[in-house]
């Protein structure tokens, strides 16, 4: 083992990672169910994370040198691994309970208007609620409401749905030149806003839509056009002078209904795209088509085209894990 590599065990699976990696990123290197959900962390945005508390995990052994467990559950996105650290995520009932608590709390002021929300079908909060939430809310008070705000003619801010992850704030801060977008007020009346409702006016502002984990920031050019699970995502590119030009086109029949940046398996944008690509190039002739976008088979968008199941690399050499995942492995043979 070299000097800058450390070993960390997450839910019984050991992985060797670079020193300074966070628990969440170490878990992402393993992949699969043990990856904690992340609503506010975004690997491309500096300083993000630590706020939503859905990625909390239990550190049952601090490190090889100091084996004491950490006293509290920690945010895995902001805690770096130590050599010999042992982490429990889905194997710890305490973590699952706390996470269910966080999800419940995130939902108490959420309007639950999924039937009319453009984000439905690709919404992180919807997925989380489905996995951890209760069938019924225990919150019996009026929910907090805000007026909808149009940030320019392309983006709409629907503050009721916001979970204040601050991703858009970091995006506006870090990939654009001037700071025009921030958080107003305090506590549960905090709101994402622009300075005196000014339009966000620069080439990359549209990316706030992609980083938003919920339906708070939506594309006005796609607004109410279609449900995402009726559209087919296709990777495409064009020669763009401002950005990389690598996008995903969302087709309904022959029409391109919207253009987004390409997202990786954790729902993060691979490369930020410019507003021209996103809002203006909406015909097939603008683009060079590559291939259908790979979508996880757990997603509702993938209803018709499943990705081939690939077992995790840690499973193959390990007899016990192979036995435990027998069913999954059989599927990989089938397809």
């Amino acid at each position, binding site marked *: 083992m070299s000097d800058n590599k450390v070993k960390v065990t997450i839910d019984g699976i050991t992985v060797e990672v670079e020193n300074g990696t966070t628990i969440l990123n170490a878990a992402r290197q393993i992949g699969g169910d043990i990856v904690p959900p992340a609503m506010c962390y975004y690997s491309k945005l500096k300083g993000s994370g630590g706020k939503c508390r859905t990625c909390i995990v239990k550190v049952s052994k601090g490190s090889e040198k100091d084996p004491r467990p950490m006293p509290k*559950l920690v945010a895995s996105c902001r805690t770096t691994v130590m050599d010999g650290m042992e982490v429990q995520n889905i194997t710890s009932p305490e973590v699952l309970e706390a996470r269910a608590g*966080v999800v419940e709390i995130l939902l108490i002021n959420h309007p639950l208007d999924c039937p009319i929300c453009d984000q439905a079908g690709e919404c992180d909060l919807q997925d989380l609620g489905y996995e951890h939430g209760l069938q019924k809310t225990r919150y019996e008070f009026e929910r907090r409401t805000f007026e909808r705000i149009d940030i320019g003619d392309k983006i709409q801010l629907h503050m009721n749905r916001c979970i204040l992850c601050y991703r858009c704030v970091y995006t506006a801060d870090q990939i654009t030149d001037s700071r025009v977008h921030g958080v107003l007020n305090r506590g549960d009346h905090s709101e994402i806003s622009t300075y005196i409702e000014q339009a966000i006016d620069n080439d990359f502002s549209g990316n706030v839509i992609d980083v938003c984990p919920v339906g708070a920031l939506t594309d006005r050019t796609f607004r109410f056009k279609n449900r995402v699970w009726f559209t087919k995502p296709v990777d495409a590119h064009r020669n763009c002078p401002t950005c990389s030009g690598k996008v995903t086109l969302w087709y309904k029949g022959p029409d391109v209904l919207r253009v987004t940046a390409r997202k990786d398996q954790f729902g993060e944008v691979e490369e930020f795209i410019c507003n021209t690509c996103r809002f203006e190039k909406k015909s097939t002739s603008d683009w060079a088509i590559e291939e259908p976008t790979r979508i996880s088979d757990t997603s509702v968008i993938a209803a018709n085209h499943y990705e081939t199941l690939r077992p995790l690399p840690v499973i193959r050499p390990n007899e016990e894990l192979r036995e435990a995942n027998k069913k999954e492995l059989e599927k990989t043979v089938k397809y």
Partner: protein
Amino acid sequence: MSRKLLLEHINVPGIAGLDVYRQKGGYRAVEKALKTLTPDEVVEEVKKSGLRGRGGAGFPTGMKWSFLAKPEGVPRYLVCNADESEPGTFKDRYLMTHIPHALIEGMIVSSYALGAKASYIYVRGEMMPQIRILEKAIAEARNAGFLGKNILGTGYELELYVQPGGGAYICGEETALLESLEGKRGNPRIKPPFPAIAGLYGCPTVVNNVESIAATVPIINDGGEEYAKIGIGRSTGTKLISASGNLARPGVYEIELGLPVEEFIYSDEYCGGIANGKRLKATVAGGSSVPILPANLTLKLANGEPRLMSYESLSEGGFATGTMLGSGGFIAFDEDQCIVRNTWNFSRFYHHESCGQCSPCREGTGWLEKVLHRLEYGHGKMSDIDLLVDVARKIEGNTICPLGDAAAWPVGSAIRHFRDEFEWHVKEPVKSQTQNYGLADYAKPIEKTAEVKAAE
């Protein structure tokens, strides 16, 4: 009379001015530290004194100072946390109003110990008079040569700045304070890194409470070992207690740690008993965020031994039967006070002051407040009580900063000890609007448990 270190000369007329303060032995500590001690020796004295942070957490100050990173060519800062806004705590304001030079002197000594060339006093925005007093005191000290370049001819230079805050409770959390001091929104930072490594402007920083900094003055004057002789066990020295509520004589008192709680409440030297001849029902011993205790557990430990005013004795028994010394905001409730209303009031405060950065605290504090409001106004349900416990448990420990814990503890403890009263509010919704539950058996004395003899 027990020993007074901070408030010894509080009644001397004109002590807020530099001349009177010096006549009474002020700025001796600066001369002693700068002329005869090295910075490391000052840190060593503070370590020996066993001084523990007076802001609430009770972390040993000397140890905190020794954690400060000292990279070459990077400035270090001392920041004084005077953003005192915990309901029930008003000792720092009292100290700054009446003896501002005690804080200035402490700041000079502490800055010297830490090697800081610029230090800040972050004062809560509502305390405008105190800000003016401090600024005047700093000007006086500069004119007398205690601040600026080449202090007392020793070559040490220091500038002190007073920074008014915006009046947010959250800015009393050290990293939120630093953010605010940098001119940003006062959101707590995610730790690590701790301020001792990367604090103000990314430089190593120590954040200390007003009282902790002022306490370094008697420590340097008398020596750390002398200071450690006062107090009991690991709770050394004296502590300012802000006594409020239904007491005959509320106010700020300096006590030697280890004073029995009963003596503090009932003796004529301190609070002089409960006002209007009523009986004590409950106390909050260390500011609104610590668990509330019924009268019997306030005075006695669960085993019947008397409870003392010290870090250890107050937290004896954990959260089941104990509380915390916290910042020393001692609130007493008499038999006519409603615990449900008080819990709602505290909850309302935390709801209002939550910064909104992390979800459990942002949404949970509002939920707690709304449920408590419903209970207090006679619209509650039996299931609400368990709901409160559950929500409080989901907030506690799952947030970035301790505000989440501070919001959850008063609710959890009030239900733990006063569940009967909460249930009464549900069972008697009409009666509870006009009457109070009363004392019940919350003051029932705890019998001393017979000592268990070791098996022979």
